[in-house]
């Protein structure tokens, strides 16, 4: 029982702590009395309430919730892709979703310059890229594992070169820096409306992935074995690819490219809880959320101007991965 509520409680703790971080000092007590006032449990002076509402609800909460959603989506989809491809080194970008979304975002910056359209374009191109990858993989009959990996590689390469074309044609003073900045990943531009839109499909996708947990255990033993165990291998694979692509494409459209979360978090969780996907997938979602909220706290408090979150996850992820490798090595042979 304690194990079931540990990660959710830790996540709530992380969110509360993250709200206190920032230029205007807030204590946990301030936050608690603000939320009490918000639901009408406790009175609060109007100007104080408006100040706190502005800081908490309009400035800090969107990026904290955004970090949580993106971290959960990347970690959970990473763990799911690792099971589908029977390879613990696979990251959510395996089927080309990141390459496609980058191209989509860059195209959006070039053509529209409007944030909502940029996000929509990133999301759509992420899906298109995975579609292209699957199409290539299935070109010569039913796709095998290796064909899926190759299809994803080809699709990612295609969209990366398309991204280069967009960068080359972009205006070097306004658009190009915007593209480069977007590719580094950022949680700064989020507001509550975007969070509300993205939260439902991401949460839905995470639940679907967790439901497939046991089937994924069987699938990670091989297609024939999964079938012999009564698991419809092909349907499970495409169901999981669909849900994982949806949540990772949404996460990229919210925050740009944030690397390493989808690789490192599932590894750490696997070492702590074992490889069973029924527990690994939900636990990775919670841990990914906590990790990215914490990383975001560092990114906006370590220097006067914030460090792009994508750079930070890379800096934090690489040493974490090296430490994990030392222990995980034994499990892979």
């Amino acid at each position, binding site marked *: 029982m304690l194990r079931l509520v540990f990660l959710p409680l830790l996540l709530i703790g992380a969110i509360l702590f993250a709200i206190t971080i920032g230029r205007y000092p807030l204590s946990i007590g301030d936050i608690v009395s603000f939320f009490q006032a918000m639901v009408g449990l406790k009175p609060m002076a109007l100007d104080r309430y408006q100040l706190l509402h502005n800081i908490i609800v309009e400035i800090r909460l969107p990026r904290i919730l955004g970090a949580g959603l993106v971290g959960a989506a990347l970690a959970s989809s990473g763990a799911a892709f690792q099971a589908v491809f029977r390879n613990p080194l696979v990251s959510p970008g395996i089927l080309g979703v990141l390459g496609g979304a980058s191209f989509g975002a860059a195209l959006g910056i070039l053509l529209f310059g409007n944030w909502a359209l940029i996000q929509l374009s990133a999301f759509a191109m992420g899906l298109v890229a995975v579609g292209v990858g699957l199409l290539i993989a299935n070109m010569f009959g039913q796709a095998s594992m290796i064909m899926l990996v190759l299809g994803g590689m080809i699709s990612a390469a295609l969209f990366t070169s398309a991204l280069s074309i967009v960068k080359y044609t972009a205006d070097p003073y306004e658009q190009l820096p915007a593209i480069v900045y977007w590719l580094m990943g950022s949680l700064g531009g989020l507001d509550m409306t975007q969070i509300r839109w993205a939260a439902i499909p991401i949460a839905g996708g995470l639940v679907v992935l967790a439901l497939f947990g*046991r089937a994924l*255990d*069987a699938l990670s*033993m*091989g297609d024939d074995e999964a079938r*012999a165990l*009564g698991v*419809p291998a092909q349907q499970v694979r495409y169901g999981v690819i669909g849900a994982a692509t949806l949540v990772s494409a949404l996460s990229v459209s919210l925050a740009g490219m944030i690397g390493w979360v989808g690789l490192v978090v599932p590894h750490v969780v696997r070492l702590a809880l*074992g*490889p069973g996907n029924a527990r690994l997938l939900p636990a990775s979602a919670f841990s990914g959320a906590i990790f990215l909220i914490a990383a975001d706290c560092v990114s906006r408090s370590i220097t006067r101007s914030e460090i792009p979150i994508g750079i930070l996850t890379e800096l934090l992820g690489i040493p974490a991965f090296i430490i994990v490798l030392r222990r995980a090595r034994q499990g892979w042979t």
Partner: protein
Amino acid sequence: MMTAVVTAECLEARDVHFRRGARIILDDINIRLHAGEIVALLGANGAGKSTLFRILLGFLKPERGEVRLGDRPLAEFTRRALAQRIAYVPQAHVAPFPYKVQDVVLLGRLAETGIFRAPQAADRRAVEEVLERLAIAHLAPRPYTEISGGERQLTLIARALAQGARILVMDEPMTGLDYGYQVRLLQHLVDLAGSGRSILLSTHNPEHAVQAATRIAVLRDGAIMADGPPADIITPSLIRALYGVEVSTLTNAEGRMVIVPAMERVPSTGA
């Protein structure tokens, strides 16, 4: 719990034909597996054993002919209904993730619970039972990736038993096992057949077929060239035809057949 039928249904391939491109892999195969039988499928590499297994398990569709389970075509069963009747024991392999032995065996219960339901106490009891039956209960908490090849093979057999299926299809189960495990495994197969299960296994070793099988089928170039009781099938001329070596067969005092390769030996020094 194990509520499946007591005896296995008959698994039967009728005039099964399969081609890959222009190459004929299986040419009008007829083979039956009855309850309580251990049928050993002998054949060189590339004779079509794996393809035949994949067709019998419903992973591949034959180009012509059909596979029947009981009185129905295999194609009429759902994946899950099939898994409750036929279990597949692959060659011991390495899993990409270090699942515990008990969790690998628990996967066998998926056929019963369905993929979206969590395993219940009854499923865990069924796992304990089969682990004890195969005398590997002590392995339960160990990672599957860290046990020996023989232990892995037994784990995969335990998973097949946890499935509750009465028909076991085993792909070269003896490969890579040491002598002790080979003998123990053969004994397990005999015990399982004694409890009404039927077993189809492929093997490269005619000795194993002779020791455990109730029937031997010989697959050569995609056709069944012989099918019958071991004593009738295993002859020096068949071994010569299959493997290109000379042997003699003996019958020991208990009436069991022994195969002795006819080969020259280093002359004894008389020391």
